[in-house]
């Protein structure tokens, strides 16, 4: 089913172009990004239900202009179509006040070359199996209620079981002198969360789902609630890990977390401009074992960050970052590309039209090889199968790793013993971890139900993944 382009943006198309044209009389370069992102968020728990807008819904515009080596932006959502001239003059006036303040206080400008674009027209409407509008609201709520009820009844220690789904329709249009780009696509994400309580403790287990898909995401959730409940209960018997270095197998979800947190953030090239990234000095060098290939791009998977062009009008890409263990490229937004004399890679993303664009990951994936999971487990004398991601934090300056994982399954003499450690913190130095990868599984899984921040703000959708990996890691 085609995901139809926004009626609102269709209606506004020539008006936005009129605004761009008027602003072009005042500035050396003007572009406008128009967004219309809508979606519904359904959340059902035993004590609370809600239906609301998807939390990052938006409808608005961001103007980017260039004058005398400086880029400025103006974000707004009041577009008075009856006074476009007045709107243009207001934009000029507000930015001029800022520029006057900058001049009065002698702030030094980071002079940047002007964007030089090639002509391009694009109109894309992607497809999904089931459009959310075709599912009844009652059907969706009942479906989630069944999951929640089932979870609560599965074990008397379960105090809460939540099932949630977001279905999001993204529409964006980019206007410049040379480009007119429009896209319409969908993504969905869902989760089941179980909270268990005994006399002294509360434990939580979680399963996420995601994809560049529509309401068919609910088909994936059908049969998992009992597994999630069992995982929550099993955590009561989990022990803390004895801190140390271990042989580990990372599930695809953990492999994805490593790709994203430990490495991906480090190759965001706006950090190269700021001299905040160690990776800048390792281009062309061995940073991982020869078994490791890694990609990032809106085109390299179909998940929650798969689009046709980015928020700066750069066409989507699939960038090889690591090739046989050698660091070959970073990912780059448009302005950083101008400053570094590099090609932009289609990774310029904004949290919303209200925020600045930064270099951001899209789908960050380790490639598959040929090893089998059974062989990986059989090869380990004492170690852990690490599973479930809770959080991670980047350290591009020093390539440190911090990943907090849900649990580890103990492996002894080549067999899973049934013992669990939880929670698990993985720390260490990224190249050490990546160079220790000596077995790589044959099938990639991609996960996109989370959100990626830059520091503690600028939240965007990003997906990551990989196959099973065997490596050495420090756990605590």
């Amino acid at each position, binding site marked *: 089913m085609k995901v139809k382009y926004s009626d609102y943006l269709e209606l506004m198309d020539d008006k936005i172009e009129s605004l761009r044209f008027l602003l072009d009389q005042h500035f050396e370069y003007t572009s406008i990004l128009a967004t219309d992102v809508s979606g519904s968020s359904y959340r059902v*728990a035993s*004590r*609370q*239900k*809600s*239906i*609301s*807008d998807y939390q990052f819904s938006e409808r608005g515009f961001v103007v980017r202009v260039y004058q005398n080596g*400086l*880029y*400025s*932006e*103006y*974000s*707004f*959502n*009041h*577009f008075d179509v009856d006074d476009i001239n007045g709107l243009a003059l207001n934009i000029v006036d*507000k*930015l001029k006040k*800022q*520029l006057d*303040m*900058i001049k009065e*206080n002698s*702030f*030094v*400008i*980071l002079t940047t070359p002007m964007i030089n674009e090639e002509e391009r027209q694009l109109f894309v409407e992607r497809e999904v199996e089931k459009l959310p509008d075709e599912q009844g*609201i*009652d059907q969706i*709520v009942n479906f989630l209620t069944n999951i929640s009820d089932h979870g609560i009844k599965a074990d008397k220690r379960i*105090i*809460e079981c939540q099932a949630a789904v977001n279905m999001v329709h993204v529409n964006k249009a980019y206007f410049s002198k040379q480009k007119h780009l429009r896209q319409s696509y969908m993504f969905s994400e869902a989760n089941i969360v179980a909270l268990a*309580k005994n006399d*002294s*403790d*509360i434990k*939580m287990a979680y399963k996420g789902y995601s994809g560049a898909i529509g309401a068919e995401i609910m088909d994936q959730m059908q049969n998992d609630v009992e597994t999630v409940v069992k995982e929550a209960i099993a955590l009561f018997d989990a022990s803390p890990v004895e*801190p140390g270095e271990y042989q580990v197998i990372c599930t695809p979800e953990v492999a994805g977390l490593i790709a994203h947190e430990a490495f991906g953030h480090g190759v965001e090239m706006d950090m190269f*401009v*700021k001299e*905040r990234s160690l990776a800048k000095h390792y281009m062309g060098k061995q940073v991982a074992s020869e078994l490791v290939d890694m990609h990032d791009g809106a085109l390299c998977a179909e998940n929650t960050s798969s689009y046709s062009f980015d928020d700066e009008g750069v066409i989507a890409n699939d960038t090889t970052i690591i090739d046989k263990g050698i660091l070959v490229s970073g990912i780059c937004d448009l*302005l950083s590309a101008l400053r570094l004399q590099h090609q932009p890679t289609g990774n310029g993303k904004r949290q919303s039209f*209200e925020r*600045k664009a930064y270099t951001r990951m899209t789908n960050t994936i380790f490639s598959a090889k040929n090893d089998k999971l059974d062989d990986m487990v059989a090869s380990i004398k004492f170690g852990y199968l690490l599973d479930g991601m809770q*959080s*991670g*934090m980047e*350290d591009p300056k*020093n390539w*440190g790793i*911090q990943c*907090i994982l849900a649990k580890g399954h103990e492996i002894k003499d080549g067999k899973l013993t049934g013992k669990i450690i939880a*929670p698990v*913190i993985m*720390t260490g130095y990224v190249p050490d971890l990546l160079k220790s990868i000596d077995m790589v599984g044959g099938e990639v899984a991609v996960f996109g139900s989370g959100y990626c921040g830059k*520091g503690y*703000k600028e939240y965007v959708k990003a997906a990551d993944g990989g196959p099973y990996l065997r490596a050495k890691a420090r756990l*605590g």
Partner: protein
Amino acid sequence: MSDRLIELLKVKADGYKIINTTTRAHEFFFIKHKLDMNRYKDVEHTLLTVYKKDKEGKYLGSTTREIHPYLKNEELEMIIDQMVYSAQFVKNPYYELVKPEDKNISDQLKVDPLEVAKDIIMTIQATKETPITNINSYEVFVNEKIINIKNSLGVDVTYHTLDSQAEIIVNAKLDDQEIEIYRNYTFGTCDKEYLSQQLHNTLQIGIDRSKAVPTNNLKQFRVVFTDHNAIKLLNYFIDMTNVSSIYMKISDYQKGETIAEFTGNDRIGLSAKAKLFNSSKNHLYDEDGNLLCDRELISDGVGVDYWGNQQFSQYVGKSKASNFKNFVFAGGSFDQLELKRSPYLKAVEFSDFQCDSATGNFAGEIRLAYYFDGDKEIPVTGGSISGNIRQLQKQMRLAKDLKQIDNYLIPEYVVLDDVVVSGIN
């Protein structure tokens, strides 16, 4: 649009709430001290919640959506119809909306946001950098907001806020070692002295971090938490007193009962405040339209009151609804003299310190800590700490002196024993 919207809602919905927020913001982005970009923002967001009662009046369904500017009447009607239809499937136990107070309080903004932005930038640029430590980059945001809350029972209140944010990266390089420290300062207007002092402290931390040695494997050890890390731990107590945690049975907190079997000298004291000096979160009213008035929550380790939104406050039925954003903790008895009697690890910087209020688990990778060996503090780096505050709170110690960090006034440090410290040495 507001009048048109309300006329439609009066006909179609059993109740409604409209929160209209207009934000005008100045934003400046610097790499080193060179201006990378300037931005201006002028946006209006109208968040509509529509309520639908069931026939027996036992349940109240609701659904929330943003209403974009310039929608035509037909579009508004269609959206409201869809929302009313959706609301009937959200069967939450019935609760009342906020009723208007006897008097409306309002305020005016007295500062120029562009001047505030300029002051923040100038303060950062005036920071004394050294050959070892300097400022790598910074981003400055100043938001002026006008907030209006209306509901179907007659609430109609308007107030202003100003909040600022300065995200700053500090670099430190000693010999071949180069590290960075991330800081995200949030406040109301620019307090130049406060911001200068914070930046000076951060540059000093940069120097220490560049000299840090690997953290020893300390197994179970006394750890001292400060600043944002202390706030994350203390949020456990704030969340435990929130009516939604109680209703969801995540918290066992009860008025009149001790919150834990404290074995040390210090007990938790906690209050919620409508306003705190120069907080970025000074609001006259909460999101439901309740006028915020200060409230004591925990006194000497014993539950006194609750806080939270309109819906859950009615479900729990033990307190007046108020969704606070400013919190004050009481100081303890632990002074510097007592602190220095035993070795400790003062964890100052983590890559990302997390504390889960539901499970009580906390953990973080150490980027900088100070190991006190009984004689002097030695900067250390690497490794991680972990623990569970539900288990460790009994012997929690709190500093005598208080320190404000934006919307929190907390003891200068929080001390926990038997925290697992996994070093790398």
